[in-house]
């Protein structure tokens, strides 16, 4: 039997979400009547909570759930409570550590690589400018760090998910 208790984080806020019997859900102790109806390929969900109707688009990337609901985006991390406790016990492991690898989000043409190996860069620095769909797109760094490898140069064509650059 699975654990039915989750810690769900949206922005700065943590919610304790508990799945109860009879389609009831508790959020930080407040109990809601929930009807979850997946429509197309699990991504479109009609959610009824205490009669309130939410027509939602939900999709996932490596770590997060993204919820588009009434015209706003919520990014949520869902953790099994037990997992969370174990992790906490082991100490904050490695949120900051490890290399960041920049992969091409789509096929395209590299227009510029305005950084060099060894550069110490800020969060938000432009790493690669990629042309795709007739537009130039600036790929920015999600965090500060040091460039340790650059695999592409201006003029290269890249495939989707091709490794372009590594940051440590």
């Amino acid at each position: 039997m699975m654990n039915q208790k989750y810690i769900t984080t949206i922005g700065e806020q943590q919610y304790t979400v508990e799945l109860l019997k009879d389609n009831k859900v508790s959020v930080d102790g407040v109990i809601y009547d929930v009807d979850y109806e997946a429509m197309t390929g699990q991504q479109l969900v009609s959610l009824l909570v205490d009669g309130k109707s939410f027509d939602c688009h939900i999709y996932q990337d490596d770590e997060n759930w993204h919820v588009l609901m009434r015209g706003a985006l919520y990014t949520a991390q869902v953790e099994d409570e037990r997992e969370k406790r174990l992790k906490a016990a082991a100490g904050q492991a490695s949120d900051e550590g490890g290399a960041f690898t920049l992969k091409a989000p789509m096929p395209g043409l590299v227009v510029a690589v305005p950084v060099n190996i060894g550069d110490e860069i800020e969060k938000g620095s432009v790493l690669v400018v990629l042309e795709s769909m007739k537009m130039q797109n600036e790929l920015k760094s999600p965090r500060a760090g040091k460039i340790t490898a650059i695999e592409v140069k201006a003029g290269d064509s890249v495939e989707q998910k091709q490794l372009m650059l590594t940051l440590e």
Partner: protein
Amino acid sequence: MTFNKVLIANRGEIAVRVIRACRELGLKTVAVYSDADRRALHVRYATEAYHIGPSPSNESYLQMEKIIAVAKKSGAEAVHPGYGFLAERAEFAQLCADEGITFIGPSPEAIRKMGDKGMARKIMMDAGVPVVPGTPGDRKLNDDELINAAIKIGLPVLVKATAGGGGKGMRTVRDQAELPGAIESARREALAAFGDDNVYLEKLVEGARHIEIQVLADSEGNVIHLGERECSIQRRHQKLLEESPSPFINDDEEFRQKMGAIGVLAAKSVDYVNAGTIECLVDKDKNFYFLEMNTRLQVEHPVTELVTGIDLVVEQLRIARGRTLGYTQSDVKMNGWAIECRVNAEDPYNNFMPSTGTLNKHAVPTGPGVRVDTGIDTGASITPYYDPMMSKVITWGENRAQAILRMRRALDEYKVLGVLTNIPFHQNLLSQHRFMAGNFDTKFVEERFSMEAAEEGKELYPEMAAILATLAEHRQTERAAHIIRRGKRDTSNWKWVGRYERMHR
């Protein structure tokens, strides 16, 4: 000039748009398509369709000779270029003429004159059309001449490529010291992009709006205007939302007719034939300046159609067949208000990064006052080969407020799965007070708007999102576990499926 079969040298929503108009006139249609577009609506809706090459547009939609060959093979007597691709290539219009095919657009000469930004400025000035103060543009100035001119015009100025478009080879200069460097880098960019390093200067009009005039001109010399479109909502020189009328002009009918008359004058000065658009900058004191003329149908033409009731593509076809315009200036009445949102496959939460993929759902909004123009269908792929515009949502209302409200509900209904879209951007924009008040200029999106700030002001439901994300995660885990346990009796508390799913399993 009569014709019964039209080749549409384009793809996407505009190809479908033209096919629809042809059908209504009883004209047969010929589509062309690249590898990526075999399943597109323009192929399926046309009477005939021919493959013209691989997906990249320079191997397919930009191949003039291939397209002409298809026209001859299929017996198409006319070509509609849509917008983009070959629409403003004078040599393509000329090639059509040489081959005895009607080009549905103006003469090669008019395209050429308006395509050279410097030349166009000169012609307009001579015709008495107001242009932004700047260098004449009809001859090449060297760097020193440009610097002297800039001082005379007064800073800030824009350095612009005469062969330009889409913001390439363009620099804003506010400080005299930056001038030589800006000229040099603009020349370099222009040379790379257009093969021509010639640049000219324009005074920077601050706080300006981008407002354009739609004109129609027939081969008998009748020219009318269909009022204005407001196009100031832009990002990186790409229009995102357009409306007609402009909230800035609103019910100032005198000003509208004044701008319209200048639009007609501009068109006449190059013996323009067919549908065209005069783009203007309008400052806060209602001074307006010619910017450029687009010698083709615009993406945003539907807002004009909805307020005037005139089908612009039907008129284009009529004009190309040598007929007299179906309307005189006094027939043109603007009724109500229309807004268009361009729906692009791009992530507004991630710097508008393009998004590609296969659409496992493309459910467009319907109902009163809502029009959608699109070239795709559920199952289509959004590829990196073409621009990211998937569709246009256009709403009409008796007034601007109703058009906005209808747009909001239409965007809420629009469901796209498989790629990310800029729909949330439009939703946020449409609830901004400044937008609702009609109080914006061309810098609004870049300088005064952010997705984060826009969402802060909204009624938010983080608990609901937490419930949804948690249930989605739970179901995913359960599904995975269920697959492993398959065959055994299901004893887990597999209860988090909806009532309907239980009934229909």
